[in-house]
């Protein structure tokens, strides 16, 4: 079912008139400051608009409609209560600069959220302001750098990053004016300690690590890594992408990390929203507390208030116009209250149970594991290198065929160092039947690959569009509608 662009539904003179003041007023703005032609916004009725966007929504896969085993993304159920309670009028109507007298309810939630996040990560203090994981990383590396500079140590500008890391890690280090040194991974998926020992030195600002790593395994010698980096004078940064795997089992603070960011949209189940908003709260060990991004919330005699630059002169400053993605933080707060202490421990337990079960079942079904001798954390990697060679069907073909089976594809081709990989994370909120169904779908696709791989090359067949021409998209860039640039669709006439 095609859905035309909203602009193609537009008819001059049509409008949703109950949504705005009846007429424009004469104004005293001189003509040279005014625009001469109206912006290209659609002229549609309210029903047209509602129908258009409702239909568009129906073209999406989502957690609410499909199993979404997307590795490294923690696509767990987003409880509806988190949304409806964060959207209560008192919260959505609160202006960011509202006086403290009109903010105690919101600030109480934020203060308690800070306290809870400190506890679950084992850190000394938390700032909620970073607006996504990547911004939390930026805050973290900026704090590490500010810490060294404040000690008069100006040469520590090199950041160590394992080769399996998310692309945001090296990109962040560069944004903070640091250089990046990649560390190799050993055959078992752990950081190569010999390479680490060779890499550290007086230039080392710190290391950025994800644990469990993006390879889906727990870095077993984390205490040794911490000792090596600390002895060299560097600090340890924890990328919280995989915090879901260890909640209540081991805390980054206890592993020796000095600073961490959390992805509240993963571990604490705030929605991904088709690509955002996220939330990347940061936690720090005591020595980094003075550098936290602002503002943070304090409590004095039962009264909540903002702590800003005058009290924290060493802060790395402000990372958002106001205080980050407040509404996302409220959702995370509600989620944590719904789970409670015991519920949060069960997150890691059942996420790990589901991942290990799915891993074992896929191996039984004939798939190769990237690290067959390791325990899965909350995710694991299947490599289709053998199947790709034998049948010609690669990881992308499997991913697209899964869409036809009614499953969102796992993460493909990441981490970069495992060929033809699928990174699979079922999360704790999926049932055994769902996982079993996924295994059966993978078996059917595997059989198809051996039978007729060319069929898989054409997948998906059942989605609103078939496989898209990415090369055309990049070479003939069309990122903005204009009636003249609508592409010719040769066979479209009879559709």
């Amino acid at each position, binding site marked *: 079912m095609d859905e035309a662009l*909203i602009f193609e539904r537009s008819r001059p003179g049509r409008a949703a008139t109950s949504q705005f003041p009846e007429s424009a007023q004469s104004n005293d*703005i001189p003509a040279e400051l005014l625009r001469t032609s109206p912006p290209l916004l659609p002229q549609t009725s309210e029903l047209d608009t509602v129908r258009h966007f409702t239909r568009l929504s129906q073209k999406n896969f989502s957690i609410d409609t499909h199993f979404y085993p997307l590795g490294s993304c923690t696509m767990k159920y987003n409880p509806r209560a988190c949304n409806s309670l964060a959207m209560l009028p008192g919260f959505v109507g609160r202006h*960011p600069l509202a006086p403290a007298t009109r903010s105690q309810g919101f600030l109480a939630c934020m203060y308690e959220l800070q306290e809870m996040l400190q506890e679950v990560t084992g850190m000394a203090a938390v700032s909620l302001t970073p*607006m996504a994981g990547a911004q939390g990383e930026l805050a973290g590396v900026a704090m590490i750098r500010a810490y060294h500079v404040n000690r008069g140590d100006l040469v520590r500008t090199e950041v160590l990053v394992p080769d399996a890391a998310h692309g945001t890690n090296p990109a962040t280090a560069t944004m903070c004016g640091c250089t990046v040194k990649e560390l190799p991974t050993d055959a078992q998926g752990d950081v190569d300690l010999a390479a680490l020992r060779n890499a550290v030195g007086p230039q080392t600002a710190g290391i950025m690590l994800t644990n469990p790593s993006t390879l889906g395994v727990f870095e077993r010698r984390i205490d040794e890594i911490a000792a090596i980096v600390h002895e060299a004078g560097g600090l340890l940064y924890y990328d919280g992408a995989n915090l879901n795997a260890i909640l209540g089992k081991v805390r980054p603070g206890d592993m020796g990390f000095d600073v961490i960011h959390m992805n509240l949209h993963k571990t604490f189940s705030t929605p991904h929203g088709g*690509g955002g908003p996220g939330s990347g709260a940061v936690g720090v060990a005591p020595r980094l507390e003075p550098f936290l991004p602002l503002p943070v919330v304090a409590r004095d005699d039962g009264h909540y208030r903002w702590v800003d630059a005058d009290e924290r002169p060493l802060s790395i400053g402000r*990372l958002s116009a106001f205080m980050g993605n407040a509404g996302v933080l409220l959702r995370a707060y509600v989620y944590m209250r719904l789970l409670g202490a015991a519920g949060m421990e069960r997150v890691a337990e059942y996420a790990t*149970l589901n991942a290990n079960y799915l891993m074992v079942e896929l191996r039984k079904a004939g798939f190769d594991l990237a690290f067959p001798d390791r325990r899965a954390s909350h995710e694991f990697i299947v490599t289709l290198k053998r199947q790709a060679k034998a049948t010609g069907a690669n990881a992308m073909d499997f991913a697209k065929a899964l869409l036809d089976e009614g499953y969102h594809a796992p993460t493909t081709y990441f981490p970069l160092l495992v060929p033809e990989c699928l990174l699979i994370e079922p999360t704790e909120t999926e049932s055994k039947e769902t996982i079993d169904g996924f295994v059966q779908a993978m078996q059917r696709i595997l059989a198809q690959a051996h039978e007729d791989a060319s069929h898989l090359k054409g997948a998906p067949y059942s989605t609103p569009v078939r496989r898209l021409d990415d090369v055309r998209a990049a070479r003939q860039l069309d990122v903005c509608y204009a009636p003249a640039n609508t592409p010719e669709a040769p066979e479209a006439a009879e559709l």
Partner: protein
Amino acid sequence: MPYIPHTEDDQQQMLKAIGVDSIEALFDEIPAALRCDGFSNIPAALTEMQVSRLMNERAAQDQAGLSFLGAGAYEHHIPAAVWEITTRGEFYSAYTPYQAEASQGTLQVIYEYQTMISSLLGLDVSNASLYDGATALAEAVLMAVRANRRSRSRRILMPRAVHPYYRDVVHAITHTQGIHLTEVPFDPATGRTELTALEAIEDDDFAALVIPQPNFFGVLEDADGLTDWARKRDILVIGAVNPTAMALLKPPGEWGAEGGHIACGEGQPLGVPLSSGGPYFGFLACQQALVRQMPGRIAGRTLDLEGKQGFTLTLQAREQHIRRSKATSNICTNQGLMVTAATIYMSLLGPTGLTNVASQCHGNLRRLLDRLEGAAGIAPAFRGLPFHEAVLKLDRPVSEVLAELDAQGIVAGVGLGEWYPELDRCLLVCTTETKTDDDLARFADALGAAVKGGH
């Protein structure tokens, strides 16, 4: 067990399949010495009913009152349909549209959004959004430094009339890369950034000039004059604009003889509630020639293998997941949900609706200023023409006035002394289309009485 579906039977079967006795055994690779034993300071679980009660009580503490606060976040009417549709599970709980065939809804929304924003700003291309207005300005600055090949300078002309928090954010994000912000003073009489202030700056090699429209004081800048001045010196022009105002005002792409290069700003006024400052979204658009320097996601239209139209993320090789340490930015998020809301909002308002909203905002401010004319101890601080915010100079300390009005259920605005010592007794007020004549009268009377009462 909240949100965990496993029955005892499921669990046993799964453990048996794995070949372990207990879930605990699955954590055997974590060194025992590092293990933590649960959480001692986290409260026990509440049911949804209990949490609802708690949150309703908390929300009820935070009454907005009759508010004239602006300063970067604006109270506008949001059609009911906007958030009813945006929070449909298919939008709300979807991931980033990397699997294009399973994400055509999100991708088409982004494409429509990019079209609307480009047109609103008078520029060729828009990205799929950034975190918020302040970070969008920081990214625009980084982009300009990368893009300006004529100037090797890492210096930016940053007017003091840009939102002080935005300047803080730009500094925090860019200073580690050696980027220096040179302040441009505002004219104390007009509240504008005047050409004379630019001429007075001794250095002449700058990568970009930021032009706020309207500026933080609500005053309209001479965007044409400033753009021409910068263009003549090979300085790139970054417009930092209010999107509602753009329905009325000349957009950055049309400023001066040749137009500005980049425009950015806070998208919140387009259908996103105030919600304590976020989540909002930052918009960013530019001329076609600069598209490869643009950070963040971009959706493009293409064809599928049957020749049918579809949408996909494009130019991804600029981004961190491919380019890693050489990416244009570390950003991977776009504020997808907020963009969905904004696209629905702009569709429901249409060109007429957004123009009427903008003109009502401006008209309300005009009416408020008219009511205050002649009020003892209250005067506009600047002569420059305002859009929907104005700075009022009071004959009484602002904090006292704010407290007195607060007690009457009116949030009068925000004092400027903290940011601008020379504007110590100045109050920044804002009127949007949400204010009625009665609201304006009530505010003007209360403000007049409070200022007079101080004497």
